[in-house]
């Protein structure tokens, strides 16, 4: 758990000085640590990708509601009319 926290601090440049020094020492002592940093960065990329997908799904749900619910028909027509003149 501590290793994860230190790697996060390293990735986000948020480790306090003493932790940054400790991390530098660990990098010299633990040959597996550079690899773990790479995997943790990939994990952050996966979290971002997962989260964006979820957010896009929420936005799409709002879009569907705006464009498919009867009470928003005038809005829908106003937007579609912008593209029908092309």
């Amino acid at each position: 758990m501590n290793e994860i926290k230190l790697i996060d601090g390293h990735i986000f440049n948020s480790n306090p000085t003493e932790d940054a020094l400790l991390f530098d020492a660990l990098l010299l002592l633990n040959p597996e640590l550079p690899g773990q940093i790479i995997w943790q960065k990939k994990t952050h990329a996966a979290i971002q990708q997962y989260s964006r997908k979820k957010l896009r799904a929420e936005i799409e749900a709002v879009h569907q509601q705006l464009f498919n619910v009867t009470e928003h028909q005038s809005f829908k027509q106003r937007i579609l009319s912008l593209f029908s003149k092309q």
Partner: protein
Amino acid sequence: MAKYISKMGGTFDEAKDIFQDALVIYYEKTVTTAFELHSNEQAYLLGISKHLWAKKFRGNINHTPLDDNQMDFVEEDDLQPSTNKLMHYLETAGQKCMEMLKAFYYDNLSANKITELFGYSGVRSATVQKYKCMEKVRETIKQRSLAYEDFVE
């Protein structure tokens, strides 16, 4: 925004994609603590949309005055090519952890809020769970990426 994309010759679907991407960027900016909005939301969204339009369909961003540092819509290519399989796995088997990690790292919610939302007994146990999840997901990504690589080779 739709008027602008239409004027530029874009379709409804293109306008929709651009607007949704702009909303994602706007959300990501608002949850980071350093972000301060200097114009109104509509103007900001229009600015992002114009920039995205120029970037995606014109290949020319010279006419858009938006700062580049507002446009760091992070590329999602930092994963292995087999991301779809991996993402599917994380969305199903690892969903509980992913939701928690999303709350911490993407939504940038406070530990107190996460403790409340996920029903943990206290901030300490929420934080411990966060690191456990991080370790679990990291190991999953590592194992699966290596396995997919073997499969591809």
